[in-house]
């Protein structure tokens, strides 16, 4: 085969379609995707969960039978000769096939053998990869005992043992802490520079698009756009602003997102970032009516702005125009009635902390999962626990809910230790578990009925609350659908509805937005904000750094320790430097880790 020139694309997709059966349904995972990726570039395959990224990756790797369309990799037709393609590409699946009961070295040796790396070359390759991935000190450790970030780096190392011409990475950065994420990107950039490898990189993190040379944006199996990240943001140039007014930022955000001509409004620091439907601020008079004293500062557009603008465009084209959330009042009006409080004064100013944690420690054998954590949350506050997978936030969370005993320290939720308090004390809290744990075999209606009964609702109140949930969360259309078959966005809404059946004073949310698309995420936070405004205390864990913007206060955890405690603005301010005047929370996190000098990943 003649050496191809760089001008030739490394990947060519032509009208790729793929359907598969999921239970009784026939699902279109890909509905006609055409795109190309040039040699020696990093191409981002971007879209929310369920967009079809993994299916596309597997088709490119020749692991799925091509149903319709054409996939060409390095000039080879994948449908015709998958083995020839597999010999030249490297593929790191989402859950990379690390053997967890093998050590790091054993995994490396296995994949070196499987990829025909000659022993002589192997040593040089290890010498190069181990320092790059920081795995050097851990070669004798079982892969199952590594942190999430380390596992991903090991997976990448295994894939790179035989330098491939074309590298497929399926969501390598999911759940990985910012430091490891930065390192993964450094490895990828190193690789493309050194050996002109073509990389196809899929991710649900929109901010990663800006690191790619080109982007393929897909949503629900359809191509939304392809091009350089700059081209995406250029489309909406002049439509992004930071807004402030004499209102609370949540209130402002709620009003602006309901205002006509505004496609997107999200909280950023103390201000609200908006994306307008057209350039200029022609409709600003309308907005000022909604938010008196509004001032807008233009800001450079982000990739996410363009994605949301595109999604809103589709939503408007496909559906009859949604009426504004509520024509007269603010969306807050749709919040549930104020919870039954016990003694505390209404009003929203936190006087007595609702959640108190002092010197909380949890050990699993010799391993310390949570080390001396202290914080307090006031009434009506949204409090965030931030950190990567394995940072200790879920353990802390489970201890607060009474699911796990603490090894040491004191904790109080609404004045109780839920582990020892009577069962009725738990009626004060609502809990939304990771992955939206619902009874997958029950219908939406059955789930609602079950959870309301479990919270001891009965009679007219139960019926009223179920009706409320159906109306508030727009579940009427799917009432008899089995929970398993719901789209992720619906699952998330149903899970929140179930947690709110009994109007709890305190709401625990564990990774409430992971995987859902940006629109569903905004919708979700709109509700949470409304709840907080009505006096509900919210404790939320997340590994999305940007979501921390929604919190009033937060702690950042790593290796079981609290790294920082404060408001998003104060935490970001601590990381401000001359060369970085406007740091993101992620920047702040990385700076803190570097400063602490701890090996987070270990």
């Amino acid at each position, binding site marked *: 085969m003649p050496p191809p020139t760089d001008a030739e694309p490394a990947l060519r997709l032509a009208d790729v379609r793929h359907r598969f059966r999921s239970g009784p349904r026939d699902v279109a995972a890909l509905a006609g995707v055409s795109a190309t990726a040039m040699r020696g570039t990093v191409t981002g395959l971007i879209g929310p969960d369920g967009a079809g990224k993994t299916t596309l990756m597997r088709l490119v790797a020749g*692991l799925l039978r091509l149903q319709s369309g054409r996939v060409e990799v390095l000039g080879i037709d994948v449908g015709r000769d998958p083995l020839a393609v597999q010999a030249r590409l490297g593929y790191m699946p989402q859950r990379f096939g690390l*053997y967890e009961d*093998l050590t790091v070295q054993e995994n490396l040796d296995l*994949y070196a053998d499987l*990829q025909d790396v000659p022993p002589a070359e192997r040593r040089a390759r290890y010498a190069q990869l181990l320092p790059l991935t920081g795995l050097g000190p851990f070669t004798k450790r079982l892969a199952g005992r590594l942190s999430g970030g380390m596992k991903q780096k090991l997976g990448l190392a295994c894939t790179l043992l035989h330098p491939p011409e074309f590298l497929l990475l399926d969501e390598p950065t999911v759940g990985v802490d910012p430091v490891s994420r930065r390192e993964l990107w450094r490895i990828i950039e190193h690789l493309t520079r050194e050996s002109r490898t073509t990389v196809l990189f899929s991710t649900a993190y929109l901010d990663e698009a800006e690191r790619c040379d080109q982007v393929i944006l897909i949503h629900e199996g359809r191509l939304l756009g392809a091009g350089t990240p700059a081209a995406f943001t250029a489309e909406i140039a002049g439509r992004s602003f930071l807004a402030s007014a004499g209102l609370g930022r949540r209130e402002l955000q709620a009003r602006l997102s309901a205002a006509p001509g505004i496609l997107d409004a999200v909280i950023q620091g103390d201000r609200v970032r908006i994306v307008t439907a057209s350039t200029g601020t022609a409709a600003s008079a309308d907005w000022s009516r909604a938010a008196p004293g509004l001032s807008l500062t233009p800001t450079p557009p982000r990739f996410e702005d363009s994605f949301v603008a595109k999604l809103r465009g589709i939503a408007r084209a496909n559906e009859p125009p949604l009426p504004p959330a509520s024509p007269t009042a603010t969306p807050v009006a749709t919040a549930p009635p104020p919870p039954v409080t016990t003694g505390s004064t209404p009003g929203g100013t936190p006087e007595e902390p609702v959640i108190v944690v002092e010197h909380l420690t949890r050990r699993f054998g010799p391993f310390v999962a949570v080390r001396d954590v202290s914080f307090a949350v006031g009434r009506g506050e949204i409090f965030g626990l931030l950190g990567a997978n394995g940072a200790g936030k879920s353990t802390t969370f489970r201890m607060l809910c009474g699911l796990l005993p603490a090894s040491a320290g004191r904790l109080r939720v609404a004045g109780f230790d839920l582990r020892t308090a009577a069962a009725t004390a738990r009626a004060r809290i609502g809990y939304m578990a990771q992955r939206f744990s619902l009874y997958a075999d029950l219908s939406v209606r059955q789930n609602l009925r079950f959870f309301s009964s479990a919270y001891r609702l009965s009679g007219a109140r139960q019926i009223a609350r179920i009706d409320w949930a159906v109306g508030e969360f727009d579940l009427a259309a799917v009432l008899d659908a089995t929970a398993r078959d719901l789209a992720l966005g619906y699952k998330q809404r149903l899970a929140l509805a179930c947690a709110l059946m009994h109007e709890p004073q305190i709401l625990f949310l564990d990774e409430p937005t992971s995987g859902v698309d940006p629109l569903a995420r905004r919708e979700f936070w709109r509700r949470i904000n409304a709840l907080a405004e009505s006096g509900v205390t919210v404790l939320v864990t997340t590994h999305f750094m940007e979501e921390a913007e929604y919190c009033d206060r937060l702690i950042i955890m790593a290796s079981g320790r609290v790294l920082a405690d404060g408001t998003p603005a104060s935490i970001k301010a601590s990381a401000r430097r001359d060369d970085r005047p406007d740091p993101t929370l992620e920047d702040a996190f990385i700076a803190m880790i570097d400063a602490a000098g701890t090996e987070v990943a270990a």
Partner: protein
Amino acid sequence: MSAATTRRIALIRKEFLQIARDPSALAIAFLLPAMLLLIFGYGVSLDARNVPVAIVVDHPDALTASFTGRFAQSAYFRPRAYLTIQSAERAMAANRVTAIVWLRSDFTRGAETTGAAPIGVLVNGVDANDARLVEGYVQQLWAGWLEDRARADGRAASLPITVEPRVRFNPAVSSKDYLVPGLIAMIMTLTGALLTALVIAREWERGTMEGLMVTRVRIGEILTAKLVPYFVLGIGGMSASVALAVFVFGVPLRGSLWVLTATSALFMLAALGMGLLISGVARNQFVAGQIAIIATFLPAFMLSGFVFDIDSMPRAVRLVTHLVAARYFVAILQSVFLAGDVWSVILPNAAALAVMAAIFLGLARMTARKRLD
């Protein structure tokens, strides 16, 4: 060494490391077989021993004593005297005795004058097998008594026929001697089919199969890499079972070890073929486990002649047993242990095993694809 060989060896080494570190694989490979062997070696016995029998003698005298005395001497019975037939029947209803032997008041007179005095024998037939064995033992005891009496009287035997029963291969007719060898087929089915299917399903579940698929490994290499370790494990289990059977349970091994090993290898290949085939269909451990138990373990237990006699099954079921690989292996095992190298048994059954192994492995190879769908 070719690249393909290197890949195969790497995969095989990985498999061994995993087995050694995985408690559930070890449980299926060692704990379950050990448990089965112990239960079958010690716990299960079809031989009726010490059967509780109610003896009711209306008029005890020397003649009745000579008859009932035989029950006390027999290893098969544990006689208990009851004064009336009613009390004996109550004991039977309460499951305290399995059978009643009743010598009526006119027994001695009848035996000494007209002859053919009736001996009432009432057996609880709920456990039909046990009841049959008990009836057989009573008949033997009765025939022996008649013969002794005739000899004592200096007459010819009082029955015109004398039966010389001779049980070949297992003169002590101990059920352990045939259950324990048959068990080896069960144990190898566990490692060959159940464990293999579970282990491959786990690779699908954990996503490691996807990782393997995109390397240069060919599907044939993946299959052989699964075959070799579990083959070794199965043969290891077989050897341990044989050692236990011979040295702990005292089962005779009359045939040659190499025949046993060679036929075990054939059976192991067939079992592995089934395991690979199942794993191609079921990609999670729950389903794989269910299918393996229903499609391989249960038939091996019920339809192989291991416990239940195949000749006595209805024709339709008998036809089905021909599809059960364990059937051929159990026949070989029982012969090699108790009879010796009986080629007329070994050759046709080994041929059947070879055919089944070839079919299952062939199907597994044909249906395996290096694809995820």
